[in-house]
């Protein structure tokens, strides 16, 4: 691999129609992305794609030469959720190491470890220190995504002292998944019960924005998940990420301009001028977490200017 850092397409966190999902992965298959995550990690009620459909997509992408990871639900509540998890792990086991699992809770770690399936510690597994990272490595973790709230000052030393064979993947683009709940906020907004949500998430391809009473965009409601309204962007930090030797960057899918964003990161990792399309965010970008500040803060330079400048250096 000649590229100094891999690009990963994270799991689709929103609820899209089956056609939209399939089109997205057709494009992903032809894109410069090295790693592609597939699967439903947010809400078990979402059923445009069944578990077997996700596994089929994973196989197709693996056949197209991508590193593929099946993402498990972050919030497993029912017996049905565990059955789906076991199917994902069985598909990983059958693939002979071609497909890995993204574990987002200890239950997924258990099922993967028992099956001898290598797994990625997802951002919701809460790896904040070296002892925990080493413990997951001993159970079969081959990569980890730091918690989204982790600053550079936490990520850098953990990456530097990571166990042998462990890859570090940093979330670098997208609305930040901030919280999970038993409650569905989208259903609640429409005055519906979760069990009868009428799949309203389908109407909000990038979630529903929540603003303060003085009009400041703040959060995004995505079913049972609460996200940032702003897009986290580490495009301007690419020189620093390369310098640290981070293995991969995760870009989180969105309905508009996603592959243009991917192209910008691809250009930037090769040191070429890169700019983001103007319409790729609805409420601007933030990078406070990376800098050890409030996540919503914007500390670094504007993405396009800094990356162009860095590439000339």
């Amino acid at each position: 691999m000649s590229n100094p850092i891999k690009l990963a397409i994270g799991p689709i966190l929103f609820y899209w129609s089956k056609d939209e999902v399939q089109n997205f992965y057709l494009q992903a298959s032809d894109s410069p992305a090295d790693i592609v995550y597939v699967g439903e990690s947010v809400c078990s009620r979402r059923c445009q794609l069944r578990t077997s459909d996700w596994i089929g997509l994973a196989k197709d992408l693996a056949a197209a030469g991508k590193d593929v990871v099946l993402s498990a639900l972050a919030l497993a509540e029912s017996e049905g959720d565990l059955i789906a998890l076991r199917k994902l792990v069985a598909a990983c086991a059958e693939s002979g190491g071609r497909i890995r699992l993204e574990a987002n809770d200890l239950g997924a770690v258990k099922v993967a470890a028992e099956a001898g399936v290598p797994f990625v510690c997802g951002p919701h597994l809460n790896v904040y220190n070296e002892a925990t990272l080493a413990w997951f490595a001993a159970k079969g973790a081959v990569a980890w995504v730091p918690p989204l709230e982790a600053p550079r000052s936490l990520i850098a030393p953990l990456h530097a002292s990571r166990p042998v064979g462990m890859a570090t993947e940093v979330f670098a683009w997208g609305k930040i998944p901030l919280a999970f709940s038993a409650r569905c906020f989208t259903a609640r907004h429409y005055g519906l019960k979760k069990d009868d949500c009428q799949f309203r998430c389908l109407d909000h391809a990038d979630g529903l924005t929540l603003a303060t009473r003085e009009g400041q965009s703040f959060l995004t409601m995505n079913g049972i998940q609460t996200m940032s309204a702003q897009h986290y962007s580490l495009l301007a930090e690419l020189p620093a990420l390369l310098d640290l030797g981070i293995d991969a960057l995760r870009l989180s899918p969105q309905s508009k301009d996603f592959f243009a964003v991917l192209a910008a990161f691809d250009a930037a990792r090769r040191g070429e001028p890169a700019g983001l399309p103007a319409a790729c965010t609805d409420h601007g970008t933030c990078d406070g977490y990376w800098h050890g500040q409030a996540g919503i803060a914007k500390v670094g330079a504007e993405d396009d200017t800094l990356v162009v400048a860095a590439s000339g250096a």
Partner: protein
Amino acid sequence: MVSSTPTTTTSAFRIPHLVCPAGSLPALKSAVDNGADAVYLGFKNATNARNFAGLNFDDKSLREGVRYARDRGREVLVAINTYPQAGRLAEWHGAVDAAADLGATAVILADVGLLAYAAERHPALHRHLSVQGSATSYEAINFAQDAFGVRRAVLPRVLTLAQVENVVRHTTVEIEVFGFGSLCVMNEGRCWLSSYATGESPNTVGACSPAKYVRWEQQGKTMNARLNGILIDSYGEGEPAGYPTLCKGRFEVAGETGYALEEPTSLNVVELLPQIAAAGVAAIKVEGRQRSPAYVGQVTRVLRQAIDALKAPGFAVKPAWQSELAKVAEGHQVTLGAYDRPWR
């Protein structure tokens, strides 16, 4: 408000322990004096997910609290349930060592590295999996049992009663559930809303919507409550103002303004006690280490009576219990939270 008799024929039935909060020595004594089977508490530092200024325990007060509880046959559980931060493991290890040395019955932990440390260094000290550990399935809980000998797991406030029952059926780990207090609507241990607004979260520093970021601002007849500058709510004249915990603020979504995430409410499971006991739940936890000794005493006293009433056939909720609890409920509204269908 009369519930049915518990199904005492099922083998799972057990009278749950009552686990009560203590943010101070007087609160601990109040919990013990009013009938708590166990008191949970934490140190005055970032190892504690309820790291409130002016509250919590140092070695001296913990030693005294342990003596007070043990003399009366009660347990002390020490919550060391934030996530150790890279390069600072010694602080969290020190807290576990101190809890062991000072005679705690158990430590309540969330981080797997810390669980491994406690299991290795202090095998005789019981290990409970904290609610901050976000174990929502029996697979996760059984894993913690196999790996760290976890004796009890505290379930996140996201499961229905039927789901709680299913977890109990599939594990030999004792299950503890929340029974009363303010309600975290988010899955504990997996909520970064506070750090998104302020840079500080329960996982890292043990605080949600920390007081030092709160600003009250009078603007004409309106009182604005801000968290690190972000408007969480504003209150008109005469409207009772609440602490700006950010998930409990009023926001605007698609032109509608209201409690978009959660209204300020209290969880109260008193009417579900027969089902909880029948499900085989080992312990019921009261939230509120930030609350006063008087609050802790009042809630403990009522729940003690209600749990004791399970021992005789024909459990019925006494109106007096509910009116006592309603007096201290946040927002003066109560809910069964995720245990009940309306959340579904």
